[in-house]
């Protein structure tokens, strides 16, 4: 086989296909771009409308309420203020908005699909190789087709982040839903539960810890990806670091990294506490 020729043909085919898609589906991708950017802008605006000390205190209060740890609440507030003092406030909340938007979209898709896969082993078998593929490829691979179809900017960053954030929550939801202990399914059936009752009263409570772990993992994946997406003009801290690396501005890149660590720690801790709070609420709802 003549390799260069083959490679050339292959590349031409891929390029051609991508071009064809971007030409013929331009309307769709423009629409998608507008919707994603719009969503992000709305979340960003919501965070921006509060002056930074206010938002830092609000997040601190939320942390206090969820974790019941005064030290952590105070630390969170001070750390966020530090981000502002480093001159990175806009970038920090921009990254926060990106992560929240992408994760919400990923959960909105991942949880229902995970439930379906948990209930249907056949569907789960279909998803498995796809999820394996997504999780095996290096994450920045998703940036290229996205940039070809959606252009440089927020929408591309969101799509790439979304793709990376879906698998953990999907997998862990499916696992949790499919692992309901046999004897409890029997209990439900013998008690005369309807399909919906069996699902919500028996399957969901047993699956909840697994689902919440999935949510947390998706959130962390989204964080990692949002930073990488700085390359495609995501805005926010990712772009700060990317820009600083290109100009060898070490101080600024370290500032950016500190801001990212702060944001990640706070969100991770909040998400974990929210899981516990959710479980307790489940306890009391009967």
């Amino acid at each position, binding site marked *: 086989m003549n390799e260069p020729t083959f490679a050339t043909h292959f590349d031409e085919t891929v390029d051609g296909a991508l071009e064809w898609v971007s030409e013929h589906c331009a309307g769709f991708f423009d629409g998608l771009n507008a919707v994603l950017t719009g969503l992000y802008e709305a979340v960003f605006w919501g965070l921006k409308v509060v002056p930074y000390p206010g938002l830092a205190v609000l997040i601190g209060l939320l942390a206090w309420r969820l974790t019941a740890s005064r030290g952590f609440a105070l630390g969170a507030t001070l750390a966020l203020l530090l981000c502002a003092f480093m001159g990175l406030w806009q970038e920090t909340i921009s990254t926060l908005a990106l992560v929240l938007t992408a994760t919400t979209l990923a959960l909105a898709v991942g949880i229902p699909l995970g439930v379906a896969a948990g209930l249907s082993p056949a569907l789960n078998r279909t998803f498995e190789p796809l999820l394996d593929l997504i999780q095996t490829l290096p994450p920045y691979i998703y940036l290229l087709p996205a940039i070809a179809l959606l252009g440089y900017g927020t929408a591309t960053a969101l799509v790439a982040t979304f793709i990376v954030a879906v698998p953990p929550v999907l997998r862990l939801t499916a696992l949790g839903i499919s692992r309901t202990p046999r004897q409890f399914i029997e*209990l439900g059936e013998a008690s005369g539960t309807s399909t919906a009752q069996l699902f919500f009263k*028996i399957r969901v*409570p047993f699956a909840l810890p697994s689902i919440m772990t999935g949510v947390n993992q998706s959130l962390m994946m989204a964080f990692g990806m949002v930073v990488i997406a700085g390359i495609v003009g995501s805005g926010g801290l990712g772009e700060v670091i990317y820009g600083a690396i290109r100009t060898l501005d070490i101080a600024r890149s370290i500032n950016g990294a500190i801001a990212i660590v702060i944001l990640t720690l706070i969100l991770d801790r909040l998400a974990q506490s929210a899981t516990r709070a959710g479980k307790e609420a489940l306890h009391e709802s009967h």
Partner: protein
Amino acid sequence: MKTTNDTPGDVLVSCQSVWKVFGKRAPEAMRAYLERGLSKSQILQDFGCVVGVSDVSMELRRGEIFCIMGLSGSGKSTLIRLLNRLITPTSGHVRVKGLDLASLEAKALREVRAKHIGMVFQSVALLPHRTVLENAAFGLEVQGVGKAERHKVAEQALTKVGLAEWAGRYPDELSGGMQQRVGLARAITSDPEVILMDEPFSALDPLIRRQLQDEFRQLTKSLGKSAVFITHDLEEAIRIGDRIAIMKDGVIIQEGTAEDIVLNPKDAYVAEFVAGISRLHLVRAHSIMTAVHAWRASRPGAEAESLARVEAQADLDELINLMVGSGSDALAVVQKGAIVGVVTQSDLLRGVQGQAQEVPAVHAAPIGEASL
């Protein structure tokens, strides 16, 4: 142990030649089993199917506790699940209060399960994230009963099993025996006529098990419930059951009262189980007595009228006490005021050993060969 009422009451649950064959080719396998008489291992080899229950017919009458005793793999757990259609039979009919379960729509089946048949599991299956009270109220919750009402009823059920003060605790704070009491409370909260007990006490230690057996029997009788009780322990079946069925390889091989089964095991398999069972409270005077004329023939001049008297229902324990107490070597057995037979010392000793006299002629025959 009580004897069963001889007049059959209303039948609450009935099975008619019910079969359950597990596997994809079940109908085919069943036909081969019936028509060609293949053995169970051949069925497994040729069709990849397992015969769980084969051709079982049984009835649960109102107010009785029906025990199904068998070892693991005997099909008893499958059989009890056929009774509320957790498992659908391959062929045959299961009727609950006259309704053929196979003919019911999903909604009607849920209704039957929710209101007419409660179930208690070996694994207990208390929902770990709910309190004891919420667990007990689960059945009513499923039926859509309001919170205040269902908690009130669940509290009453917990009181009946002696756990009222544990209502607010979580299952993992309770011992195994207490957990199974909650399981029982949950089953009676919906006030079903029939309770299915799937080896409920098997995982408990012997003392707690005996206590729960007695409590269960008492509670079931006082509430007027009927129960099908699965166990692998013949002693448990005898303590609890009004009637007992012994299962082996998916077939009921013998059915009857505890006394019937202990005195007249139908085959070597049953005889082996029965061998270790104490007869003291099972065997009664009427099954071991000698006919009056036979006794008189062996003891010329003796008069049955002069002997100490005992009711035909008296068990061996009572007979021994009486005989030792009266100092005589024979007792007159009385039924409705008339002397119907005599129990001699040798009758009594044979009774303890587990061999009935030839008096109830129908009973005596198979024992000799069976015990070999």
